[in-house]
């Protein structure tokens, strides 16, 4: 294990963990329910650790990314349905991220939001064209470490640490009305979806192939998915806890994507605000790049095209065309001027429905000794994998009814 590579991998995972849906739902969850939803973030993080580690292991041992193997397991018909559903949900997610980029550039520059969304797409597209894979991942991941300002801000506002720690214990707050209970349930489902987005598995496993992982990289994979995701999740928890401390008591609902930045502005003033906005911009921009690439990976792998940013754009022409088209389609969605918060809701809703179809083939493959040999799932990965599969299936079934009953958490 190369310590430098490992450190860079962990730091990239930390800086790249939070995206716009986690930002939005963490802030809202804190303002509505205090610290009571922290445990859902913790639980979902363990879930993404389990499946992330599995997808990295499959990439390193079978040398095949998730979507290639999904097509083989699901066959053409069900595979096409899964491809369509996951591309649609990831496209909406990309649009939400691009909308977030446009909003934050608007806050920073005062220029019109839609113009900034176009500028954002051009800059992100240029970075994807010019930079090879590792530079893309490291640049956005490491610059995204500015998000640490949220953890520092939480410490600075002296929250009731006992109550924060208590939030890690699974609970449902007492005394909630039926409507509030339904909203609590909706937030549980939304947080699970936001943390365990399907694109995470596609991007992570494809990234493992891009970086030519082998069995020798398995310890690295394990450390990155456990330590990196855990620390990244703590940033999301910091946003929730700060929101609980600052917004909740004032009955302030963070209804715009940039509200979270105030959590750093309150203790640190203008400097904190700028660092927070900068961190959010990079984290969301990185997520926009990841989601766009995840879609291009999915399509290219499903149809057996050349793919990857370890190749020059003209060496994988259909893959290149795919990510350009996905960026343009996402921009088109943003240019309809649909509310960014609505996009985030739809992204989360569509994704949770697709999650079981994404993770089941991965589980079955990681269990298969024929492909994985001695690196097939042992009892811990199997037990945790099936447990979390049950959790996401339950969440997928409950998602749409809860969304409708609570009007997307607004009721």
């Amino acid at each position: 294990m190369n310590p430098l590579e490992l450190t860079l991998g962990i730091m990239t995972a930390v800086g790249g963990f939070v995206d716009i849906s986690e930002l939005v739902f963490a802030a809202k969850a804190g303002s509505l329910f205090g610290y009571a939803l922290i445990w859902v973030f913790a639980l979902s993080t363990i879930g993404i650790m389990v499946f992330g580690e599995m997808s990295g292991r499959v990439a390193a041992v079978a040398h095949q990314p998730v979507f290639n193997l999904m097509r083989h397991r699901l066959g053409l018909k069900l595979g096409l349905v899964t491809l369509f559903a996951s591309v649609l949900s990831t496209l909406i997610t990309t649009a939400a991220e691009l909308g977030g980029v446009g909003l934050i550039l608007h806050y920073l520059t005062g220029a019109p939001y839609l113009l900034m969304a176009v500028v954002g797409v051009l800059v992100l597209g240029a970075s994807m064209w010019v930079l090879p894979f590792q530079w893309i991942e490291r640049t956005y991941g490491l610059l995204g470490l500015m998000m640490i300002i949220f953890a520092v801000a939480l410490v600075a506002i002296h929250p009731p640490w006992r109550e924060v720690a208590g939030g890690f214990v699974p609970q449902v707050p007492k005394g909630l009305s039926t409507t509030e209970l339904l909203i609590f349930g909706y937030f549980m489902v939304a947080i699970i979806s936001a943390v365990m987005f399907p694109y995470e598995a596609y991007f992570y496993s494809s990234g493992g192939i891009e970086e030519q992982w082998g069995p020798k990289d398995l310890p690295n994979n394990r450390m990155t998915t456990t330590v990196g995701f855990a620390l990244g999740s703590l940033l999301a928890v910091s946003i929730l806890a700060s929101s609980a401390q600052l917004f909740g008591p004032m009955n302030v609902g963070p209804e715009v994507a940039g509200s979270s930045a105030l959590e750093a502005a309150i203790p640190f003033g203008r400097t904190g605000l700028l660092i927070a906005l900068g961190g959010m911009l990079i984290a969301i921009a990185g997520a926009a790049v990841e989601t766009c690439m995840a879609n291009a990976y999915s399509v290219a792998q499903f149809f057996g095209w050349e793919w990857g940013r370890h190749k020059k754009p003209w060496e994988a022409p259909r893959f290149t065309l795919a990510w350009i088209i996905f960026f343009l389609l996402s921009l088109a969605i943003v240019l309809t001027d649909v509310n960014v918060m609505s996009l985030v809701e739809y992204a989360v809703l569509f994704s949770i429905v697709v999650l079981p179809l994404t993770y089941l083939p991965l589980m079955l493959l990681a269990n298969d000794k024929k492909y994985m040999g001695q690196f097939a799932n042992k009892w811990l990965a199997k037990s945790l994998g099936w447990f979390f599969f049950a959790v996401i299936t339950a969440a997928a079934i409950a998602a749409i009814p809860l969304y409708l009953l609570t009007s997307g958490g607004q009721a």
Partner: protein
Amino acid sequence: MTPSDPLKLVAELLDLPIMDKDGRYCGIVDDVELSGSAGKETRIKALLVGPGAYDARLPRWAFWLISKVAGRRVARIPIDQVDQIHTVVHLKCRAEDVKLHQVEDRVRAWIPKRGAL
């Protein structure tokens, strides 16, 4: 394993990605052509690759839609060009030798060859 080893065509061959001898991805095994007839000696003749091979695998309306977008081409890879089969089908030849990569080459003409590190 090789094509002459014991092989399950659905579980171990169908829908596997294909890589040519230069390590380039060049499609998915969309169908398998067999020579022979019912009850008589029947051999694996070729792998079929391309949207034209979806006709027997999709409902009619879905195949019509896909063929409008992607066409109906089918490339044929003679089985003697298959080297190894595992999580990927490895070929003995280059993609161009079996008429794969034609669309990739056509799209390449549209992609500027500059600017990338």
